[in-house]
């Protein structure tokens, strides 16, 4: 941002790093994988310039572990990966959830399963983002659809991670990660930055996992004088393991509730041509742009079509989807997978109106035409 003009043509992946730096990222650990590699490469280049640390780990398991370590040591931390690496990160992602470690995980989705189509876009990890690790746990996941949004929502991802002490997933797709578009930088003074809540008590009074009213415990960094214990075992307020059934149940419930009950605080979404929409397309990420073009076309032929675009893809925007269902005669969920977000939309909206799927797993972005045809009853 030392350049005078405040905009630049850059890739989504680069915008992600710019957002992270704007949010205060000081630590990145990762392992290269297409199509997310630029996030690591640009972090490697920019972090030392701001006194931050980059490290290339031996694999994705270690990368996820290292950012948890980095965060515990007090630095805002991020990693980036794609499908296969995201699968490998799941165990330690669950650790971050239960140990309440703020961190951001970027997953630039490519064609799966397995090695699949490494250089093609897909949205096959919508459900994995929520359910990929074992056991019940909280997850926040955001899906930008442009370079600008990638920048802005990466900042928000850090803010949510810090505020709620939880891992936040930037669930991108190759389309957004690799496209180049204009990014307009924000003035630092305009950017809201949230830092983790620190303990105000004396070290010997610190109960590391005693939540305040807001369900979130203050977090000290290792080395600050608050010597405490962190574990992935079910633990009590002190942070030490317990087998007490009541406490165990309360812990898991609190963890999930601190996200689920605060959904309104993180409910990002866009409505496009929704005022009078009778047919509603629900789409996110790259596909939502196809949907907009399709809607523009469909509107020309007189169809009242609108878009509801969740940016916060987890937790589920139940209230908003329910409202859409109230209004819509028909909902289409368009995704580059065989139907994932569809299931939750169908569950919530299906009670009020028919919900249909538009899917594609060929490694290409769904086109506006495919949406138009689907809406026109073409399929």
């Amino acid at each position, binding site marked *: 941002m030392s350049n005078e003009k405040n905009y630049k043509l850059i890739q989504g992946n680069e915008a992600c790093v710019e957002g992270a730096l704007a949010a205060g990222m000081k630590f990145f650990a990762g392992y290269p994988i297409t199509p997310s590699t630029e996030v690591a490469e640009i972090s490697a280049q920019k972090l*030392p310039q701001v006194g931050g640390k980059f*490290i290339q*780990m*031996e694999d994705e*398991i270690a990368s996820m572990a290292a950012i948890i*370590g980095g965060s515990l*040591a007090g630095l805002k931390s991020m990693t980036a990966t794609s499908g296969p690496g995201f699968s490998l990160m799941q165990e330690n992602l669950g650790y971050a959830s239960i140990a309440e470690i703020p961190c951001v995980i970027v997953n630039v989705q490519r064609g799966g399963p397995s090695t699949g189509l490494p250089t093609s876009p897909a949205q096959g990890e919508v459900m994995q983002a929520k359910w990929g690790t074992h056991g019940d746990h909280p997850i926040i996941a955001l899906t930008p659809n442009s370079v600008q949004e990638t920048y802005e929502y990466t900042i928000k991802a850090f803010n949510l991670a810090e505020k709620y002490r939880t891992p936040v997933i930037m669930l991108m797709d190759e389309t957004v990660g690799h496209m180049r578009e204009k990014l307009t930088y924000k003035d630092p003074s305009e950017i809201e930055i949230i830092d983790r809540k620190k303990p105000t008590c004396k070290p010997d009074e610190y109960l590391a996992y005693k939540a305040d009213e807001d369900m979130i415990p203050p977090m000290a960094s290792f*080395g600050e004088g608050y*010597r405490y214990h962190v574990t992935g075992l079910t633990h009590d307020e002190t942070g030490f393991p317990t087998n007490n059934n009541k406490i165990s149940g309360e812990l898991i419930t609190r963890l999930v509730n601190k996200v689920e009950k605060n959904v309104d605080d993180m409910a990002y979404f866009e409505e496009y041509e929704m005022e009078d929409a009778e047919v509603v397309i629900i789409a996110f990420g790259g596909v939502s742009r196809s949907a907009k073009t399709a809607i523009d076309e469909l509107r020309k032929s007189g169809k009242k079509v609108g878009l509801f675009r969740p940016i916060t893809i987890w937790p589920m925007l139940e209230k908003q989807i329910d409202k859409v269902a109230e209004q819509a005669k028909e909902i289409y969920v368009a995704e580059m997978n065989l139907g994932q977000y569809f299931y939750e939309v169908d569950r919530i909206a299906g009670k009020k109106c028919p919900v249909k799927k538009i899917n594609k797993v060929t490694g290409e972005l769904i086109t506006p035409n495919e949406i138009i045809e689907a809406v026109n009853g073409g399929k």
Partner: protein
Amino acid sequence: MNFSEMTEKYYRTDKLPHIWCPGCGHGTLLNTVVRAIDKLGLNKDEVCIVSGIGCSSRAPGYLDFNTLHTTHGRALAFATGIKHANPNLHVIVITGDGDASAIGGNHLIHAARRNIDITTICFNNNIYGMTGGQYSPTTPTGDFGTTAPYGNTDSTFDLCNLVQGAGATYVARGTAYHAQAMEKLVVNAISNKGFSFVEGLSLCPTYYGRKNKKGDAVKMHEFLKDNCIDKKVVDKKPEMGENKIIIGEMYNNPKPEYTENYKVVIDKFQK
């Protein structure tokens, strides 16, 4: 400072007694680590102990430092993040033979390769204690475990050889029986600016001992007493090393350390 004061100062006494079985070697080894830290006079706020999962990995919970009990095998990857983020911390990893060398083998060799300033103490009891006695990569060939009901057909890892081959700059082996020597090895390991590895031969009377008819904890201590020999002795008289377990300092050869190398890069931009 006597042992009692040491306990008061460094242990979370309200968490004691620890979950380890009667006679478990892990307790004795943990004491050697505590005494080494005391000897070095480290500031408690600047010590960070990280572990994975296993009986041995329960150690940090009993110590009054910054303590982190992670996932199975991953302690060194978490520790690497901590140390890289805050090089002022003295980061010590306490791990088991399974944790460090089975599931965690990759992080072990890469931490060694990077020569990052982390001291790893592996409580090696030749068995997966926590899960009830399955053989581990260090279980001697032919010995029994619940998953080696006909005797272990796997070859045995020599962990010191492994980490030395991977690039560690300080490598040593001690035992629970040779507690004073072990303490010194840990002191040297922590003092080494780089990746240090100390294998502490422990004992698991509950599983390894019972499965292999090695007798009780006392018998197992006696085994260590009778079957170990210091490297310095063997270096002079190789024949004395036959059929013995070599203990002592295996390798000590400092080279540039990871976080210091990285600091050079950062410093370029700080002018």
